[in-house]
């Protein structure tokens, strides 16, 4: 259960740390494969990072992620849905 929902910059920072991405700050438009060159381990690691933030992404949804923004939107959507007062 997420304690609080992270803003995009904090979320992106957690992703950069978890995936050891050496480039500068991540933009919402950064594409996971084409721009960040995440391989399949990295994409799995990405799911682990998101789950550590309290959100489980289903298999089918994970396959459709194209950008960092897609991951963030899914994170917020599921985090909100799991909040008791949402």
């Amino acid at each position: 259960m997420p304690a609080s929902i992270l803003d995009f910059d904090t979320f992106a920072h957690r992703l950069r740390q978890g995936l050891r991405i050496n480039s500068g700050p991540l933009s919402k438009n950064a594409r996971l494969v084409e721009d960040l060159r995440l391989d399949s381990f990295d994409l799995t690691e990405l799911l682990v990072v998101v789950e550590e933030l309290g959100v489980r992404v289903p298999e089918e949804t994970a396959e459709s992620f194209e950008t960092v923004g897609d991951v963030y939107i899914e994170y917020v959507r599921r985090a909100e849905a799991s909040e008791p007062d949402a």
Partner: protein
Amino acid sequence: MTPPQPASLLSRLEQAADRGADATFLVTDEPERVPWARVQDDARRLASAMQARGVGPEHRVALLGSTSRLLVTAIEATWLAGAAVIVLPLPTRLGSEEEFRAQTRTRVGLGEVTLTLADPEFVAAGILAPDDPTVTTFGELAAAAVGAAGSSYERPSDDPDATAILQFTSGSTDDPKGVVIPGRCVLDNLAGIADRVPVDQEDDAVMTWLPLYHDMGLVANAAYAMTYGCRLVIAPPARFIGSPAKWMEWMDDFGGTWTLVPNFALSMASRLLVHGDRLDLSRCRCLGSGSEPVSPDVMHRFTDAASAHGLDPKAMYAAYGMAEATVCISVPPMGTGFTVDVVDGVTLESDLDAVRVPPDHPHARALARCGPPVLGMEMRICDPDTGKLQSADALGEIEIRGPSVVPGYFQRPDATAAAFRAGGWLRTGDLGYLAQGDVVICGRLKDMIIVGGRNVFPEDLERAAQAVEGVRTGNVIAFGIDGGRKGDAVVIVAEVKSDDTERVKDDISKAVADVVGLRPEDIVLLRPGTLPKTSSGKLRRSICRSRYRTAELESV
């Protein structure tokens, strides 16, 4: 406990199928549970259809498909037909289709296969040679097996020496070598594992998502369950990759007693177990880490996290193996739990000497103890340069000999001769020593890099990187450093003749991804003439790696 050993893989498969256990396929969200006896009936029909296409003893069948009931059936069918199986690797997510096509065709060609079965999408994408009469889909052969072609199975005679598996895990992609694994080696090696971890056919459930083109997935999991007749619960690797929390949930759902993974999966699971729902892992007797360097930190973190879900810490162990030993070289007896040997990390790196120190020593480095060599496996430690025998507790190259050490590489007498010393001792290329009889691995002599349990050769990474515009041809070094999230972290060091360093780094990253499907963790660009080489111009990878570690490389 261990049943008497019949003469051949074939007769063992036949006996095991009658024991009443089943295989559960987790290809979709609906598990498909099939008795092994039914798998074997299907496999016998499929074997008959293979025989109608000329497959028999001394032949090889290549299989290209994701983990499914059909793939497992086709592996068994190949063995029932008396032939050897080559399970071909699937494409990596980032890798280019061209590279995948080239690698697949190379292996099919070198394997001199009689028949290739593939998933239809690979045939449609032209991964295999077009109009090749030896290529068909799993589905087409299965359809033929339902008809007349499936009703005339002729059982080959028992031949323990018949090759069961041709495993292409050695050699760079330019020069792959197929490890010839006879059926007798498979049975002997599995008996060696069962001697340490006794099989309980009624109760055991082997849970795996490892790829079947990997020896740990094919031999230590699938063939183990098939030949001992115990339950197998098997998922395609893509399902774990797409949802890593599933592995532990499957262990709970299906009462997994046995599971074996590379280190990176334990690292991920240890973090997920802290957050997820409470699971019941109490049935698990045997949870092993193998096929990439075992991190004691990760083992301890995982054990702590999993204990909260009922895992017995004594179920944890580290194993050591390679395809040239069929799969397993050493494994601790069940119930020992994971243990370490603590040595001076500085002396280890600088003098290649394993000096034992107390755990609170400033240079203390914990190394995984991988148990004693399996039954029948002889081991000695030699000086890698001179071949001189060392004392067992001195650090040196591990050499092995025994009934599950394979005879060599397929049609490569040169490579076979290079791998063995006189007296049938196989050079493993691994550096290690024995701690009170337990194998401890400290590193590798070969420059091979291990990522996610997969062997990656620096030559392949270097070839990819030097094709980039602005990189000086022949002036690239690739190496792995430990401590990466997914095994070794890949580092590329390249001399450049371009000022556009960001573009060059980006292109190298892309080129490496195309060829091996991996993202390098770091790329260092050097001025021309500064890459470490010998006087004859050969690349000095280990010097380069140590300069990288000590930050002595001056990047442009």
